[in-house]
């Protein structure tokens, strides 16, 4: 088959990026199952885009961008769900689940810290220090200038350090 070569290459791309994308999603949505779903959806969507014959310049950046958009969508969905549930059950959501994760996973301290960090900062911090992407790559994925990314990283790190200091003072 003619498309075979491309399919193979795409599956290789999956092998290379499945873990990094999963990790990225995990530290953004704080939910292992949800992170897995988003990772799966990311590759499916990317393939659908390519299958339409669309042009992609930087495939890795493109995959991250798809994941990023799906994560933002999931935030919105969560908000809607929360609102629904608030109407039905009152204000008792989210807390249990987060604690459960923190108990069972590596990187739980990071999660705990990240939870208090605004997503604007969390996004770039995860990309830079966990996904190991360069500021230039992050800029391409998010669609901001490299300068904006550098400033955000700087402020995000400062906030994180403050958060660590605070938790040390508390304990």
């Amino acid at each position, binding site marked *: 088959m003619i498309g075979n070569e491309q399919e193979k290459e795409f599956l290789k791309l999956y092998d290379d990026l499945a873990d990094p994308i999963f990790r990225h999603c995990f530290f953004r949505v704080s939910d292992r199952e949800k992170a897995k779903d988003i990772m799966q959806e990311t590759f499916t969507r990317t393939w659908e885009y*390519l299958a339409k014959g669309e042009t992609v310049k930087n495939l890795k950046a493109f995959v991250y961008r798809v994941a990023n958009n799906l994560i933002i969508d999931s935030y919105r969905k969560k908000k809607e769900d929360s609102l629904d549930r608030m109407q039905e059950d009152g204000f008792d959501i989210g807390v249990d689940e987060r604690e459960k994760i923190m108990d069972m996973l590596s990187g739980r301290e990071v999660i705990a810290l990240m939870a208090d960090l605004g997503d604007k900062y969390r996004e770039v911090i995860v990309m830079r220090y966990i996904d190991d992407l360069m500021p230039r790559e992050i800029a391409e994925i998010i669609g901001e200038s490299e300068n904006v990314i550098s400033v955000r990283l700087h402020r995000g790190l400062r906030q994180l350090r403050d958060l660590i200091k605070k938790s040390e003072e508390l304990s």
Partner: protein
Amino acid sequence: MKTLKQLFNEARQLSLTAEEKAQAKHILRAQMALQPLAKPTLLGWRLLFKPLTLVAVVVLLLSGGVSLAAEKALPGEFLYPVKVNFNEEMRALWAISATAKANLDTELATRRLEEAEKLSAQAKLSPQVRAQLETKFQAHVEKVKTQVAKVASQDSEAAAAVTADFEASLKAHNQILTELSGTNKRQAQELQPILVKVMVEQQVASDERVKADKKTAARADVEAVAEGRREAAKNKIEEVEGFIQKQTERSGVEVMARAEARLAQARKLFAEGEVKLSAKDYNAAFKLFGQAHTTAQEAKLLARARLEREEENDGEKATPTPSSSVSATPDSTISPTSKIDITASGSVQFDLEEEDEIGEGN
């Protein structure tokens, strides 16, 4: 508490289990199979992502010297495979509608005839090549018929137009082959089988046209059909007038005399159609306009064939042109003073190129 660096390092250890990763891959594979790539390409991944590059390569090849020179190649010549396997295949890719396909196969069938005529005039038509050309001609003819049937199921008038063009082409080559056969015994013998095939197909096309015309005559909007054909015939006659006039300035009145006579016939038929139209005899009118149209087309094909022969003679008299289709060995059956009207002909695909060469020759 750990440092940030330690925390991040720990976070980086997180991964899917091998099982999770394999399972997700399995799902992905299934989804990929459901949605195969829309534009697979033999040229690979990079080109897939850059369709413009692919287009550029094709344009380069199509506009390039190789492809252009190949257009005039004859069977047995180095570039002939490029002409048949690349140039013609590329054009087949662009011919999407049934009408476009039928028109293309009409042209390709005509090309095979032209090649046989040209080779015969150069005394280079071997029995094998002749058999091959015959087979290919027949294959294109069959494709025309299939496509015409498809067109007819949707638009009988469009099918009639395609059939009429096909018939005009066969008619013109019937003449050309007949005259070539009259040149000498060898040509008469080697062209006989092809001539018979052309005559048979011409008859079939003619019958088809008559049938289609009958259907058209029964249509409620026959007046509109007559008007439409009148316009088409008028345009065609004007087009051929322009073509012949241009060539007459170059090659002289004598060379174009036969085509000119055919064109005069087309004008006459057109005038008769006008009379019928104003008498509201739409049935007669649309048939006459159709005939005028095909006769004009025939005139053009005759002019073109004649033109190619002149060009060939010039090429043999003077220094050979770069074109591969011009034989280096003079052919005794063709000379500028020969009485044969039409000899070899090849298809003129790139007018500018042709004109340049003709200009040089004169």
